């Protein structure tokens, strides 16, 4: 093995590689490029995290107060002479008494209670005291009495919201200077509120009804809640899931596994990608034209909303599902076909189980983006002011008018009373929590199906 020619024998061989202990210039440049790339990556992540933090911070700062409400607690004597004039104890008869009667009972009871407790502000009229109670309180008391007629004639403890301005005073939204110029609240009322708070009659309480109650009019922002919107969104997500998953999976399987590769399927493919890029508002117009004007479905209904969202998310879901199916190695298909499985068996027994985690993740992420969609829902009338809960799905609740969380955010943000601003941010918090749970569900499902071998 010695084929060194005589001439090259004594000439020192040039070394191809230098010492291992010092980096060559090329190596230095490569390392520097690598370091730069790391820095870019970290910078990008920092920017993303900062933006997220700032966004969450502002939303929580503006919205957390929506979950608390200034509430006064005082005894109320339910005067039989007012609420049950006939004395029959008959609910049908009693329901003829409107909230005006209950408002009087509440007002009189509060005036009397404050006098008894020695909470007095010089020059404050009884009307001013009565006006501190939310316009919503009489309706709640009425519901309570009608649900339990035995309360008539008794003295019960009532938790009543204060009006929106007094509540705003405690949340720092209303100051005495503003109150002087505001016809809806007087400085005396604010003084009284301070007194009541000291005496423990008035407290800030967690407001469940913000999550459960239906929307309320401009006059009583303190009573407005997300109940109908939350139910509406829940119904829509349920229906959208039921519509999109089978259609999306069937379409994807057909296109990936069965469809011949020709002009027509190419055209379909291009169009699915195009549809994914169509602005969502267009789907709203389509839904309005087809489902409401042509098919005659009721507007504001979760069913129509779900159909529109289905049209909107299907392209995205089909693209994600096809990617998941395509990611299954072809050798698995060969193996199944090789032992004599039919095309359908190959897909159902081998391809789908492997693609399931990807399909579910894609579907739920598609649904999550649909859950935050506002534009198309505005067009099909989901922005209507709805104060009745939709019925349960079994009783046709999918056709009852409902609202949706993002639409509720929009509609509250556009109202004039500043008390709705905090509720708008509060609704965003609820929407974010809703989406958080959907994504958590996606992760859990993924883990469950991902028992890869």
């Amino acid at each position, binding site marked *: 093995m010695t084929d060194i020619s005589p001439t090259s024998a004594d000439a020192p061989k040039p070394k191809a590689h230098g010492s291992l202990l010092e980096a060559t210039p090329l190596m230095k440049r490569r390392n520097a490029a690598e370091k730069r790339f790391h820095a870019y990556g970290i910078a990008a992540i920092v920017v993303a995290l900062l933006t997220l933090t700032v966004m969450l911070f502002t939303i929580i700062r503006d919205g957390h107060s929506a979950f608390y409400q200034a509430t006064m607690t005082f005894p109320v004597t339910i005067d039989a002479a007012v609420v049950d004039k006939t004395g029959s104890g008959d609910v049908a008869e009693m329901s003829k008494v409107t909230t005006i009667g209950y408002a009087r009972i509440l007002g009189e009871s509060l005036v009397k209670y404050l006098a008894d407790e020695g909470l007095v502000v010089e020059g404050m009229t009884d009307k001013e005291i009565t006006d501190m109670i939310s316009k919503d309180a009489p309706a709640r008391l009425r519901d309570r009495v009608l649900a339990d007629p035995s309360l008539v004639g008794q003295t019960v403890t009532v938790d009543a919201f204060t009006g929106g301005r007094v509540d705003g005073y405690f949340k720092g939204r209303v100051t005495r200077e503003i109150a002087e110029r505001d016809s809806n609240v007087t400085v005396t009322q604010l003084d009284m509120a301070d007194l009541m708070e000291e005496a423990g009659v008035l407290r800030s309480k967690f407001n469940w009804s913000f999550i459960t109650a239906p929307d309320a009019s401009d006059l009583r922002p303190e009573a407005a809640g997300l109940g109908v919107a939350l139910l509406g969104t829940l119904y829509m997500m349920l229906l959208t899931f039921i519509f999109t998953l089978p259609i999306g999976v069937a379409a994807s399987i057909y296109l990936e596994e069965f469809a011949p590769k020709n002009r027509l399927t190419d055209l379909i493919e291009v169009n699915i990608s195009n549809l994914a890029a169509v602005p969502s508002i267009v789907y709203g117009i389509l839904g309005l034209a087809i489902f409401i004007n042509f098919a005659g479905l009721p507007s504001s209904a979760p069913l129509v909303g779900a159909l529109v969202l289905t049209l909107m998310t299907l392209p995205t879901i089909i693209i994600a599902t096809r990617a998941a199916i395509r990611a299954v190695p072809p050798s698995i298909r060969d193996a199944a076909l090789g*032992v004599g499985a039919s095309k359908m068996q190959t897909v159902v027994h081998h391809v789908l189980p492997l693609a399931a985690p990807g399909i579910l993740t894609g579907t739920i992420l598609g649904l999550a983006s649909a859950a935050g969609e506002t534009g198309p829902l505005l067009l099909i009338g989901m922005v209507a002011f709805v104060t009745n809960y939709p019925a349960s799905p079994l009783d046709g609740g999918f056709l009852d008018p409902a609202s949706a969380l993002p639409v509720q955010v929009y509609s509250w943000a556009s109202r004039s009373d500043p008390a709705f601003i905090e509720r708008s941010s509060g609704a965003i918090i609820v929407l974010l929590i809703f989406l958080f749970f959907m994504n958590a569900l996606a992760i859990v499902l993924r883990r469950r199906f991902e028992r890869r071998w």
Partner: protein
Amino acid sequence: MNDMRIVERDVDITENKITARGVQVYYGTNHALKDVDVDILDKTVTAFIGPSGCGKSTFLRCLNRMNDTVASARVEGKILLEGEDIYDPKVDPVQLRAKVGMVFQKPNPFPKSIYDNVAYGPKIHGLTRNKAELDEIVEKSLRRAAIWNEVKDRLDASGTGLSGGQQQRLCIARAVATNPEVLLMDEPCSALDPIATAQVEELIDELRAEYSVVIVTHSMQQAARVSQKTAFFHLGHLVEYGETGQIFTNPQDPRTESYITGRIG
């Protein structure tokens, strides 16, 4: 092209299992297999040898119509299985593949348990009536593929968690489990150690009693050891086909001679 030399005296010993006439395969415009005529005998091991890319796998995949799954592939000519044209429009390739099993060049176990890998074929073909019978088939197949001792304690473990050679034997077990009439094996021993190779060769020899086995191999010694017939492919042509002994000792074509003596390939 008429380089095919069938040894006539063999025909009366065993009958033809597969008859191929004028088979052409195109991948798009690439003419991968040119005018192949071959008779594969029943109860015989036939070896396909030839340099890489000469079309051995391609021809093997024609025999159970796995080329149907390649969109660009086009097959012409006639291939008869016991006198029936397998490319007849009436033939369902699924039914064909139950008769003609295949072990692929790259091990491709299902991402399922070892047991399920082997049981899958018998299950979909309804070969068993109860769990006990299925268990029996699984054990028998794993034994025949010379892997039973290694996996008998972990049949519930993943098939993809085995080593490359074990996976290949698992695939052999899976192919054997459906009880095919013809078994196509594409380099089944390329990832196996000499001991497992010997066991698989033993299996092939055993299968010959009932089936027709076609094996692609890059090892001349293996071809010489296990096969009775050998076909030499070169650049898409079937250059020479005949008795294994004759091919290796007295090749008729200069290309065959160069290949087996190691000058081309």
